[in-house]
């Protein structure tokens, strides 16, 4: 862990930080060369009485070089990191045993759906969203009857792959837990999967990272990462009633 970055609390965090550090070094070196050069030129070629300006029309070779090097570097970074991005964002990358959790974003709340004892999330529909049914749960789907719906609290077992099914009710939001290094836009009309493994038990925070309205800065939720046993106990305590009514 680097002292200037948040805790690494997911399976992706160390490699994301590695990429971040390498890209920072690769882009930082030319940044300092250019800025120091700029400073030197500004001082060395400052206005002096009697000095005449020298006009140049550029150097094609130099321009080719300093365009090609960043371009090749960018492409190389993309190719090198491609497999990692596929692992994080690829549609088929979600592990088969991932534990499903529904995350429904709306101005300015996060509604979390847990699958209950059957381990399956019930069907939802935007047409069914109401005050009493904030996630639009479809009660005709038997899998929804034991689902647990809770506002602004994401409870996760540590060490187990999680697949979040992200939906939005109104505008584009973004699911972001800095300690997990996981950020995924949540787009109305789409169900987007995002997977990760929370590795370090603790308390974190979801922050919406897409400006979504005047209350954007208040759109936060607590994240509790616990052991599997603690999670199971919590889930039992919050088990949904038989008919699957929501637990606000």
């Amino acid at each position, binding site marked *: 862990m680097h002292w200037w970055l948040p805790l690494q609390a997911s399976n992706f965090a160390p490699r994301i930080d590695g990429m971040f550090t390498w890209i920072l070094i690769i882009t930082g070196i030319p940044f300092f060369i250019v800025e120091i050069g700029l400073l030197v030129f500004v001082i060395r070629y400052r206005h002096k009485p009697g000095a005449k300006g020298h006009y140049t029309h550029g150097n094609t070779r130099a321009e080719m070089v300093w365009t090609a090097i960043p371009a090749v570097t960018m492409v190389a970074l993309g190719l090198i990191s491609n497999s990692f991005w596929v692992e994080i964002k690829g549609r088929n990358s979600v592990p088969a045993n991932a534990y499903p959790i529904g995350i429904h974003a*709306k*101005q*300015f*709340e996060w509604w979390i759906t847990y699958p209950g004892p059957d381990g399956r999330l019930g069907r939802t529909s935007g047409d069914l969203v109401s*005050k009493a049914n*904030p996630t639009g749960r479809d009660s005709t789907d038997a899998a929804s009857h034991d689902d647990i719906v809770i*506002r*602004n*609290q994401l409870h996760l077992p540590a060490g187990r792959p999680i697949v979040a099914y992200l939906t939005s009710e109104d505008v584009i939001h973004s699911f972001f837990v800095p300690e997990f290094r996981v950020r995924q836009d949540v787009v109305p009309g789409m169900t987007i999967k995002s997977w990760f493994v929370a590795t370090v038990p603790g308390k974190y925070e979801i922050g919406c990272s897409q400006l979504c*309205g*005047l*209350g954007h800065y*208040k759109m*936060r939720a*607590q994240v509790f990462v616990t052991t599997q046993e603690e999670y199971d106990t919590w889930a039992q305590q919050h088990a949904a009633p038989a008919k699957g009514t929501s*637990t*606000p």
Partner: protein
Amino acid sequence: MRTLSSVAAVGAGLLIWVAGGPSFTSAPSGAAGGTVSGKVKFVGKAPANPEIDMSEEAKCAAKYKTKPHEEIVTVNANGTLANVLVYVKSGLPADAKYPTPTTPVVIDQQGCMYHPRVFGIMVNQPLQIKNSDPLLHNIKAMAKKNRPFNISQPAAGMTTNRTFSAVEVMLPFECNVHGWMHAFAAVLPHPFFSTTGTDGSFTITGLPPGTYTIEAWHEKYGTQDATVTVAAGPKTQDFTFTAK
């Protein structure tokens, strides 16, 4: 002496103007006329209201000694139901006009709850939206017959006035920062409405003699209608909602 005469003349003129002033086909609420009053009773076991987790808003949570609950079904100690809006649904003359009060109806956001939760307001009567909490609330009016609005009040003491130009029963309000905050307004063309409180009673005054349909509205239990014939004097009409 001349001054006194002038004052007297102006005073007499005013008296004549008031006496012969605008007349209404029905007396405004509170004036002479029939009165319909009663209680809204509740039968059965009251359902538990969902507990509100206010941990995200420490300044609101601090205002409660016990865990706050939503006020969806509030059954009073005397077995009556609060937050029921009772109003004259029909029976008033179609061409009747009633003066619009200039005094605003105030809805206050306090302790991350709306006060009142259910209320009536006349068409074009000012609604003053007030924030007594030192934090952001937005108030979203999900009107269908009026112009919807969604305004934010990020600081304590802020007030905003709005009016509604069309009849709408009911018009829901919500705060999107605090999902448990809901309120409901009946926008009516007349002043004959009343909301039950901690004793479950309602009183509608100033009704001209006639036969009316009175409706009682509750956010969970829906509506009940009663036909009431009003003459000069009081009339009692109770309603009963049953637990589902």
